[in-house]
Structures are given as structure tokens and as C-alpha cells.
């Protein structure tokens, strides 16, 4: 950790101004709310146009990991991380498998959460609870990792003036305040600002790096001198890993509960379609530039360890500090990183609170008024944020690996959603048994001495194969004969 603040005084004031503007948006979101209801609070009254919907989808999908983790992965894996561009596009392809049918259903039956759809489609409380529990587990993980990241960023950019724990607590307060003020409206509007910051930040930083460090072609000789490894031939293992990552992301990230809530909140079908089209372009304007920056960086700054490699962009920008105006670019990078992290945490928190309120509390308190449910949801947001802050600060690193298996578990809810909207004959039991077998096999590989990547595939992918297989067999042997 550096003792020298990365941001200038002006940069810090810019950051303070940005954070205060988020609170202001929360206040505006509160005044814009039309009624005290879960639909208005958690879906912004289902009235988002293309601009806000696209930007909130974009900002939510590109977490802090996109800016910091992706660059580190690209530094370490070279061009192999091109898979990052492909999988970010694949996520939208995943949406297309279910969103065109789910959206009209959500409008007709006023869905608020993923649990609402599962309950409507299968009418099986146990299945709904299991899917809600898996969703909350995955979202909690998202919150935790991003809260930790924001603690490190705040501490790093202020040269330790704001410590890791203080950074987490301070930012958590800001997020929970604007979220409970205006709900999805505030979150989506702040996401819009955060999305613009992220996109503009990446494009400017890419331009700066290409001008001052050169393009991959201009660095070709340097690559061979310092990073010849990135040109080693692709192996069968690489190809299997590539395929495995695509499957995991395609079925996993496309069913994130916060993404489904954004689909529900579209004003109309045109809005949703246009937002998806724009989302497909974004990996080429965000992930690809980050990949190229990190690869160019690897030629100029070889032999960094894992932690250092995740700071490759900052390292590259810092070396250009003597150039006029570079402090502005660094401030922009920091703001973009913080924006990316915040937009992910606030969306995950909103989704968790809505899942708890609608799918757990409301089911047990069916007479509760919309006003009371909204109040409970807000209260739960504070509780869950406080709980996550404590975990982010105190969770021992020895059990941190548990958190990292979110996607391998979440992927198992995909059949319930993707097949459920298309095939009305699939029974709840086929889905339930498939899910239980899939999760069990995944955990078997992850929690026992068995290899966590059997045959080079992620455990979640192997589990998903068994999930689909069980579902298919149960459906064909039992359901078709009416023995369900």
C-alpha cells in the first residue's frame, strides 16, 4: 500500500463532488416516486427508457472486476483473455433465450423478482425457495467481493488517509442512503452516471496508452524480448478452458437476479430490444480496450506478481505523471473504477432486499400492505449492507474461496428460467431434481479432494450437464407418463 496519495487535491474534491451527487440523485429519486409499493420501489415503476435502461444494464454488468480484475487477467494470460470479449457478448445471447417471452409475462403478472416468475411458472414453494436462496448467495458474493475492492481502492488512492475498513464503511453508507431514498430509480440513475464515467474513462485511457506506449504492432519487438510467453501455441487445455468459461458465463451471468429485474423494469419491448443491441456493442468498447491496454502494459512492465498486475493500468498512467493533464486521466480512472464497483454493489443490494421482501417476507405475511413491505425492504437493505460490511472487513481469507464459487452454483437456476419460458410441459419436479443433482455434483467436485476442474472443465459446467441430463430423463421417463 502506498503512502503517497494517488489523487491530487483537486482529484479528491472531484471524487467528493461525485459522491455527493449520488446522494442528491437519491433525493430526486425519492421525490420522483409515484407510490409506496414494491413495484415502484424495486422496478422504478417499470418506466425506464432506452437511455437509463441500457446504462443501468451496462454499469451493473461491468463491475469493478471489469476494470481491475480483467486488466490483471489480460496481463497474466495475454491474448487468451480475448475470451473476456466473447463472454461479455455471450451474456446478452443468454438473455435472448428467455427475455423475449419473460418480459410480456412480467408485465401481465406484475413480477418483481425472479422468485415471482418461478412461483408463477412452477407453483412449487420448495423450488422457489431454493432458487431464491441460490440467488441471494450469488448476490451476497457479488456484494462482498466488490465491497472489499472498494476498500482497497479508497485506501490506495488516498495514500492510506482513508483506511481499508473506513473506505468500505464510508462508501457503504453512501450506497445504502441513496438506495433507500429512491430504490431502483436512484440506483438506475446513479448507474447511468457510473456507466458514462466507465465508458468515457476506458476510451480516454485507451487513447492515452496508445499514444504514449504505442499499439500492439508498435510493441511487437518489445513483446518478443519481454513477454514471448503470450505467443506460445494454444493447447488443448486452453481450448477446453475457453469453452468451459463460455458455458459458465452464458448460463450463469445471464440469469443474475439484478439483470432479470432490469428486464422487468423496461418501459416497453422496444426499450428492451434497443438496450440489448447496445449491450452487445459494449464489450468491443470496454473489455477489448482494457485487454489491449493490459497486454501493451505487460511488454513495458514485465514480471509483475498477481496483485501488482491488477494495478497495471494505474502503473502505466502513473509513469506518465510528468505529462500535463495526466492527473485528470488518473482521477477519471479512479472515478470509473469506483463507479463500476458501486453500480454493482447497489444493484446486488437492491436485488437481495427485493428477494427477501417479496419472496420470503411477503409469502409469510400475505396481508402486509405495500407501504409496510416497502418499509421492510428498506430496513432489510440497511441490515444486509451492515452484515456485508462486517463480512468484507472480518471474513478470514481461509474461507474466502467459498465465496468464489458463486457462478458455479448460480448456473443451475438457468434451466428453470430458460426452459421454463419455452416448454410448458416441463414439471417442477424435473426442474427440482435436475437442480439438486447439478448442485450436488458441483459441490462434490468443489468441496472434496476430487479435481475442482474435471477434464479441464469448471465443476459448475459438469454439474450443469448433469442438471440438464437429470431434467431430460425425468421429463421423458416420468412426466410424459404422468407419474410426477
Amino acid at each position: 500500500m502506498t503512502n503517497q496519495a494517488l489523487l491530487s487535491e483537486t482529484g479528491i474534491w472531484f471524487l467528493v463532488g461525485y459522491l455527493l451527487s449520488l446522494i442528491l440523485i437519491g433525493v430526486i429519486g425519492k421525490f420522483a416516486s409515484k407510490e409506496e409499493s414494491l413495484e415502484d420501489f424495486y422496478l422504478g415503476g417499470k418506466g425506464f427508457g432506452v437511455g437509463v435502461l441500457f446504462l443501468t444494464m451496462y454499469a451493473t454488468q461491468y463491475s469493478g472486476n471489469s476494470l481491475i480484475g480483467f486488466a490483471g487477467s489480460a496481463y497474466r494470460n495475454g491474448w487468451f483473455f480475448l475470451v473476456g470479449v466473447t463472454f461479455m457478448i455471450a451474456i446478452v445471447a443468454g438473455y435472448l433465450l428467455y427475455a423475449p417471452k419473460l418480459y410480456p409475462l412480467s408485465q401481465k403478472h406484475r413480477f418483481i423478482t425472479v422468485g415471482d416468475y418461478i412461483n408463477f411458472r412452477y407453483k412449487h414453494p420448495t423450488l422457489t425457495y431454493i432458487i431464491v436462496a441460490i440467488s441471494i448467495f450469488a448476490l451476497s458474493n457479488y456484494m462482498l467481493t466488490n465491497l472489499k475492492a472498494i476498500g482497497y481502492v479508497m485506501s490506495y488512492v488516498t495514500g492510506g488517509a482513508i483506511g481499508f475498513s473506513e473506505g468500505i464503511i464510508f462508501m457503504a453508507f453512501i450506497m445504502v442512503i441513496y438506495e433507500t431514498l429512491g430504490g431502483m430509480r436512484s440506483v438506475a440513475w446513479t448507474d447511468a452516471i457510473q456507466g458514462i464515467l466507465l465508458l468515457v474513462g476506458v476510451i480516454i485511457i485507451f487513447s492515452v496508452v496508445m499514444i504514449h506506449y504505442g499499439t500492439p504492432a508498435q510493441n511487437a519487438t518489445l513483446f518478443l524480448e519481454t513477454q514471448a510467453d503470450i505467443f506460445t501455441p494454444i493447447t488443448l487445455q486452453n481450448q477446453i478452458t475457453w469453452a468451459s468459461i463460455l458455458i459458465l458465463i452464458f448460463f450463469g451471468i445471464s440469469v443474475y437476479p439484478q439483470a432479470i429485474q432490469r428486464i422487468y423494469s423496461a418501459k416497453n419491448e422496444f426499450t428492451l430490444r434497443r438496450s440489448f443491441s447496445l449491450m452487445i456493442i459494449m464489450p468491443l468498447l470496454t473489455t477489448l480496450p482494457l485487454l489491449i491496454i493490459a497486454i501493451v502494459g505487460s511488454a513495458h512492465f514485465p514480471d509483475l506478481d498477481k496483485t501488482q498486475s491488477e494495478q497495471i493500468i494505474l502503473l502505466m498512467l502513473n509513469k506518465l505523471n510528468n505529462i500535463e493533464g495526466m492527473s485528470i486521466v488518473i482521477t477519471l480512472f479512479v472515478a470509473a473504477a469506483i463507479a463500476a464497483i458501486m453500480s454493482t454493489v447497489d444493484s446486488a443490494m437492491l436485488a437481495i432486499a427485493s428477494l427477501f421482501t417479496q419472496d420470503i417476507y411477503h409469502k409469510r405475511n400475505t396481508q402486509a400492505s405495500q407501504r409496510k413491505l416497502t418499509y421492510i425492504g428498506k430496513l432489510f437493505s440497511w441490515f444486509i449492507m451492515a452484515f456485508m460490511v462486517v463480512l468484507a472487513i472480518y471474513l478470514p481469507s481461509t474461507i474466502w474461496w467459498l465465496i468464489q464459487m458463486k457462478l458455479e452454483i448460480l448456473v443451475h437456476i438457468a434451466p428453470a428460467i430458460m426452459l421454463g419460458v419455452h416448454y410448458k410441459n416441463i414439471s417442477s419436479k424435473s426442474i427440482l431434481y435436475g437442480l439438486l443433482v447439478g448442485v450436488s455434483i458441483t459441490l462434490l467436485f468443489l468441496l472434496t479432494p476430487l479435481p475442482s476442474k474435471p477434464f479441464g472443465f469448471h465443476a459448475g459446467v459438469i454439474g450443469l450437464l448433469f442438471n440438464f441430463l437429470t431434467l431430460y430423463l425425468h421429463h421423458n421417463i416420468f412426466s410424459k407418463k404422468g407419474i410426477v
Partner: protein
Amino acid sequence: MFKFSFILLFLTIPFFSSDIYYGIPLWAYISLGITILYALSLIFVIEKKWHSLKEKHD
């Protein structure tokens, strides 16, 4: 038909050599090119074939 289009994603798996052209390995050009084609086809489906994505399958 679109249900199976994700299988096209596997075409992006790197199969070509790592010969370097302008600082980038050959397989990366091919994988990126196919990824862009895939992206364009998705945009076409969204903009022109949205209603076909809602076809009944029962």
C-alpha cells in the same frame, strides 16, 4: 433455431497458429473476427427477428 445459436460461440475457440502479425497472434484475429460476426448476428436477431424468439415450443 436460435435456441442453439450459442453453439456458434464455440467457433470462437482458438484453433489457429500463434504466428504473429502486427503484434497479435493469428488465432486472436480469427477469434475476434468470429466474435464480431456473432455480435452482428445477435443484433440482427434482436432488431429483425425478435418476434420469432417468442415462438411456442410445446
